[in-house]
């Protein structure tokens, strides 16, 4: 399974802070994003940052491992 996290405005639109997505072999971050965005298109309009296991993900074509934690995030507004 892949643990998918949402925060702030994205979580509000998804209606949840977290969900589990099925892990598939050779699944990329982009594949996961596409799956989630198909289900939560309004929420994903806000997504502009992605984190993989708590680090900024720059490469959306990285292949995921079972058990990874991914966060799809709106622009930060801290500070």
């Amino acid at each position, binding site marked *: 399974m892949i643990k998918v996290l949402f925060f702030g405005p994205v979580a*509000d639109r998804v209606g949840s802070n977290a969900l589990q997505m099925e892990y598939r072999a050779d699944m990329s971050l982009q594949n996961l994003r596409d799956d989630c965005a198909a289900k939560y298109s309004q929420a994903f309009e806000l997504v502009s940052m992605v984190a993989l296991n708590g680090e900024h993900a720059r490469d959306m074509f990285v292949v995921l491992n079972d058990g990874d934690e991914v966060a799809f995030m709106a622009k930060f*507004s*801290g500070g």
Partner: protein
Amino acid sequence: MKQAVRIQLEDFSQDEEIAALKGSSKRMGGIGTFLGCARDFSEGREVAEINFDAYGPMALSEMQKLRTDAIEKYQLLDARIVHRIGTVTGGDNIVFIAAGAEHRVAALEACHWMIDELKQRVPIWKKETTPQGQSWVVPHP
């Protein structure tokens, strides 16, 4: 001694943070700080309160990296970053950044750089409660 980088619900004291910063070196000639506060008015609307959501572990680790990067980039003697979460109201402290260096230019430039970078790098979101309801803040470019 409190950690140099923290995310916390409770308020903080500048005097305590500065004393901790100074404690690291008597060669510190300049300390630049930035304190971000909750305004009771934003974008033409009254703001009753601000709530924060954060990706806690990532936010903390990004703030720790930011401190290390600033120390290296500006040759700081020490630096501290504290960000509050939970609920704050007008006038309350939100974020505190302090940079200590031998001379003032490095301290002041590092402080400015750190708050700009924090806003880019650290996964925290704020929601304002106004008479028109609640809305997540959209950062300006």
